């Protein structure tokens, strides 16, 4: 019998903590170094080496926890999670068991226009593993190479309750989480660089049943859309197995993104006993309230709140406000530019447009982020002022903007040096209009016979005569008056 099933999804998200040095030693966390360059006696586990906790990493986890409404456990501890693998030099990972730094948080997401609160079980602090290389390019090696640059970088692991019910909800949750964490600056969250990784637990159960179905863990998902696809595939697979009268087993499956399927990796029977025990090398946490309160004060305005404020204070549309507040750097850029604007109310909308269209297009084309923008906030504000006070037209503004982007140029100087100032002198425009009318008898005749669109050709001629510098509003106004008479 074909039944209706409900999907039950839980996420385990690993985010690399954005700190200068690793979590238990002083090595750099920078990405892209020569293999094993960012290592020391601690992260390669030489005899006698002892981990030393990076306070900044603890602060990042707590900040993240506070932003997500977590309870901070002031007396948290570290534990050793033991398993043998070459990428983990001690053959145990320093992580947290009970209690983690943060317990019981929540993240509201919007599902089909309605808010749904997803409860988050915990966030804990742990260290990352190194990387093993089994092939160079397409060439398989008959040995393995080990790079420990990543070993010991701080990770925060966030585990949700099994409260997500569709691939879209999981996708929405991760996007929302990513946005908040990026706002906090506690992780860069880039899945491409492996700075954010996510394992998914999926089960299905007939609608209305209380007991959970058999849980399958999916690993090896490398993108946000991959998460959505992997869950969608796995939910369908489980339904099919059940509908065809089969049974599911508790197992770990790998997502094969190219084939778009999950494949069994190991069953529950093969699960490891990690032999956790308290880490004796590190003293248990004893976090003073003042420490936590200080961090609470450092939490910036969260994206949703900021979006609402942008709509209210700057009169932006939902679309523009969403775009601007999707990442903190863009929102910061916008507000900084606005702070340089003379007429804030008038500039707000125009500035938002320029950032979301012109500037964004440039960033996409040159694959850079707004923090590397060659156009400073101050210069963009100047450009907007030049448009607003009629010094240049929108069209000229685009030409000026090219210069600003290519050469980080000051728009006022570009306009001055290239003589791009808009002509708003009525007598000069009048003269050009008269010339244009006398040279466009066909268009004039058409206009007078009621074909109003014909005026465009005459406007074009005026603009050509003025090298594009005539104030288009004035041109339109004067031509209309002239042609009526």
């Amino acid at each position: 019998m074909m039944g209706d099933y409900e999907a039950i999804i839980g996420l385990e998200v690993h985010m690399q903590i954005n700190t200068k040095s690793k979590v238990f030693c002083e090595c750099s966390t920078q990405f892209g170094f020569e293999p094993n360059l960012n290592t020391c006696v601690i992260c390669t586990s030489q005899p006698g080496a002892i981990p030393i906790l990076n306070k900044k990493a603890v602060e990042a986890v707590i900040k993240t926890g506070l932003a997500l409404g977590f309870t901070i456990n002031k007396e948290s501890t570290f534990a050793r999670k033991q398993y043998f693998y070459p990428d983990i030099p001690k053959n145990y990972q320093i992580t947290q068991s009970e209690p983690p730094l943060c317990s019981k948080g929540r993240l509201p997401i919007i599902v089909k226009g309605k808010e749904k609160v997803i409860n988050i079980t915990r966030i804990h602090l742990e260290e990352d593993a190194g990387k093993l290389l089994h092939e160079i390019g397409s060439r398989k090696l008959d040995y393995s190479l080990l790079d420990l640059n990543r070993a010991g970088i701080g990770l925060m692991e966030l585990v949700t309750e099994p409260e997500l019910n569709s691939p879209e909800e999981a996708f929405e949750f991760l996007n929302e989480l990513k946005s908040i964490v990026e706002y906090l600056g506690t992780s860069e969250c880039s899945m491409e660089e492996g700075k954010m990784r996510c394992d998914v637990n999926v089960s299905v159960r007939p609608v209305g049943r209380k007991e959970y179905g058999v849980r399958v863990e999916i690993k090896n998902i490398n993108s946000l859309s991959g998460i959505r696809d992997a869950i969608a595939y796995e939910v369908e697979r489980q339904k099919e197995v059940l509908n065809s009268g089969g049974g599911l087993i508790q197992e770990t499956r790998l997502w094969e993104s190219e084939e778009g399927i999950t494949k069994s990796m190991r069953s529950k029977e093969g699960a490891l006993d990690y032999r956790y025990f308290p880490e004796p090398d590190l003293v248990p946490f004893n976090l003073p309230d003042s420490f936590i309160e200080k961090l609470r004060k450092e939490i910036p305005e969260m994206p949703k709140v900021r979006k609402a404020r942008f709509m209210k204070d700057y009169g932006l549309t939902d679309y523009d406000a969403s775009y601007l507040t999707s990442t903190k750097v863009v929102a910061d850029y916008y507000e900084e530019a606005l702070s340089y604007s003379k007429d804030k109310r008038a500039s707000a909308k125009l500035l938002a447009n320029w950032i979301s269209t012109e500037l964004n297009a440039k960033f996409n084309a040159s694959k850079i982020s707004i923090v590397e923008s060659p156009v400073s906030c101050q210069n963009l504000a100047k450009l907007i002022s030049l448009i607003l006070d009629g010094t240049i037209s929108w069209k000229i503004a685009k030409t000026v903007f090219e210069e600003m982007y290519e050469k980080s140029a000051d728009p006022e100087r570009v306009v001055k040096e290239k003589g791009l100032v808009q002509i708003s002198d009525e007598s000069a425009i009048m003269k050009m209009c008269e010339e244009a009318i006398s040279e466009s008898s066909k268009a004039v005749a058409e206009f007078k016979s009621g074909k109003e669109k014909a005026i465009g050709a005459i406007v074009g001629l005026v603009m050509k005569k003025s090298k594009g510098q005539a104030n288009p509003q004035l041109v339109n106004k004067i031509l209309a008056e002239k042609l009526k008479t």
Partner: protein
Amino acid sequence: MDEILKVKASELRTKVHSGEIKSVNIIEACLTRIKGTDFKVKAFLKLSEGRSLKQAAHSDEKIEKGEKYGFLEGIPIGIKDNIMIKGESMTSASKYLENYVSPYDATVIEKLKEAGAVFVGRTNMDEFAMGGSTETSAYQKTANPWDIRCIPGGSSGGSAAAVSAGMVPFALGSDTGGSIRQPASFCGVVGYKPSYGLISRYGACALASSFDQIGTLSKNVKDSALLASVISGRDYRDPVCEPREGIDYVSYIDSPDVLKTIKIGVPKQLLNYKIDAEIAKHFNEAVEKLKLSGTEIVEIDVAAYKYVPALYKVIMCAEVSANIATFDGIRYGYRTSSSKNLNDEYAKSRAESLGYEVKKRILFGTYVLGAKNYYKCYHQAQRVRTLFINQITDAYGKCDFIFSPTTLQMPVKFGETLMEECDIFLTAANLAGLPGITVPCGFANSDMPMGVHFMGSRFSDVKLFQVANAFEKISGFDMNKYPEL
């Protein structure tokens, strides 16, 4: 035996620094003594002959020229082979680390280098400090200088034998469950284990991290205090190291009336054990001597002593199983020459290079941390540890120091085993993080020495030295007597 070798370190210091004797002469005397007797004792794994002499000459030059010199400038010292000296081999008496070269200095070594001490050689020990006889060393069996048919004790047997035989005036050891104090007692020297967290563990090859402490072995109490003054104090590289400044223990050590002001507690539980008759006799005499000096003796009741061997074994082995896991043949150390795959490589590298005692402890530790056994073994042991600490704390409400024979047995012949309870009054100090010192108190009819043990409350190390020093003066033990070799 050169008379210069009978001069204690604190006096040598004065003589060398005043120019009365040359450091070179002392080092030469040490090396001659080692060459002439160590073929019988086998205390040293490696001598640094050339470097020691060169360093001594440099020290002499500095002193002669009136340049700035260190606190222990030109004074020889033996270093247990589980402490890192940059650029030198460090085997921990294991085949696994046969060709390992330390890439860094332990904190204590850094401090000793700054103080100008001369590292004469590396002393033998039980493999990874696991053992109480120095017989588990992968390289050689060290003999007790008082009777070379007997064990010197362990694991710091090499250091104890070297000091006892007059090869060096003092030496570093490490103590996890009695590993300094038991061999010190067997060899008739002073052995001191500081309060947990007084001396940095950074650079000492870990055995059981929550018990390990570096400590000292010397002919008299004052020399241990001298050495402790140099190596103790805060170290950010060891998180469990207390943020206390180093103390000049020597300047406090002479306190003539200290014995009149303290209460000494003798555990009632001593009666529960089969104590060697001569040890019992000497211990009772020591108690009488203390009484005659005006010390108040009280009986204390610490019922949980009976759990000490079991709970030590569980927690120590658990930590061993994780700490030794890093020795996997991947990054350094012994690697098997033939292996089929990764797991085979791990298994063979470890099977071929680790000794029986080490394997036994790894297996036991792995067992007690397994998911099925964790609560009834490891967790239970931690609970009992807390119970034990509470009872000891209560006992310190009645007395200032706990007094016992150092060992309950005399040193045995090679191949014979000591009873499990032999060191329980020493292990007690490690379980509770307390300082302990053994002071020789006499010779048995066999001409083998024995000692008594003072255990203080945490960070009572200054007073512990005072009491031990005062007892040494009334012990009747002739510290100028050296074994005939």
